[in-house]
């Protein structure tokens, strides 16, 4: 017998040579991606995954895993296999050349103008 101080384990009457079959490969439910929204109108933010046998249960588990603590307005779940994504080997498609920096938002020197305006108009 397995000696455990935990009454729940003790009640299970587990023996040392118990015949628990080893897990077969993929002996897990599918995964679902969970998106959490703090307040109405906010963006849903990806917070992690849950394993579940179907989408209703994924929603239940998503609620308990990620919506149990703190503020929550809404939860989305999406089957991981339904997410269409880029390949990491194609990561170079996101690279950009230094000459194109003018096309990035950071390229605008708008804060200088705002500060100048504020200074002149004493806002």
């Amino acid at each position: 017998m397995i000696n455990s101080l935990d009454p729940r384990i003790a009640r299970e009457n587990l023996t040392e040579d118990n015949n628990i079959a080893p897990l077969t490969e993929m002996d897990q439910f599918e995964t679902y991606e969970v998106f959490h929204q703090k307040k109405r109108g906010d963006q849903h933010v990806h917070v992690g995954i849950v394993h579940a046998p179907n989408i209703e249960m994924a929603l239940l588990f998503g609620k308990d895993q990620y919506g149990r603590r703190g503020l929550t307005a809404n939860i989305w779940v999406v089957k991981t296999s339904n997410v269409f994504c880029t390949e990491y080997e194609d990561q170079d498609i996101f690279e950009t050349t230094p000459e194109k920096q003018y096309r990035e938002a950071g390229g605008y020197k708008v804060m200088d103008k705002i500060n100048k305006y504020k200074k002149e108009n004493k806002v």
Partner: protein
Amino acid sequence: MAKNIIMNNIAIKELLYKMADDLLVLGHRNSEWTGLGPILEEDIAFSSMAQDKIGHSQALFSILYDLGEPEPDTNAFMREAKHFHNSQFVALQNDDYDFSTIRHFLFYHADQLRFDNLANSSFEPLAKVSRKIKGELKYHVFHADIWLNKLGNGNEESHARMQTALNYAWNYALGMFEKGDFEEQLIAEKVFEGEQSLQNKWLTVITPIIEKANLKIPSEKDWAPILGGRKGYHTENLDQLVTEMGEVFRIEPGAEW
């Protein structure tokens, strides 16, 4: 008039005790699955709901405290089993997850309907607690319904196990609606709608959900509610639970946690 208020207090206390004890005992039973749930996510969900139930019982023990009963922890952990007013249903030992899921479903629906009615109780402290926990109860039955449906409509084995568990649980579940001594008074004073009315509502709500899960409620001629719990008649199931539940508290009753 004064006599009326005193009687009323006893009636309300009886109502509070049976609810608080049901929630405490089932909360404890369900928490026994912590670490042993079928999958990690469900383990967390089921444990979290068990904690909710214990929290709800604490809220009721706090009202009892305001009515002159012992302090909540003492009341919960120092009483002997024969002084508990829970139904025998909630004290039954866990077997497999099929039974725990069925009990979770049958009890949580009754619990939600009971609090739903009490949200309009003339006894304001109870009405206030009911309104506060509304969302948690809604989630609990949401969870229970999905599991019942999934396992009832699962494979042959899951369906058979659920039906067996439902048959076994049924008469115990009917015992939840055992009438107290102050039933008429609670109804007349608009504190609570009464067990009969609650049971009727419960049947109306759960019947279509059970049917949708492809399960059958035992035929009415076999209904024989298992009563006694409300009056302190319990089996060794509760002795075992009460001993274990209060084990740590009793080592040092006055300890600060």
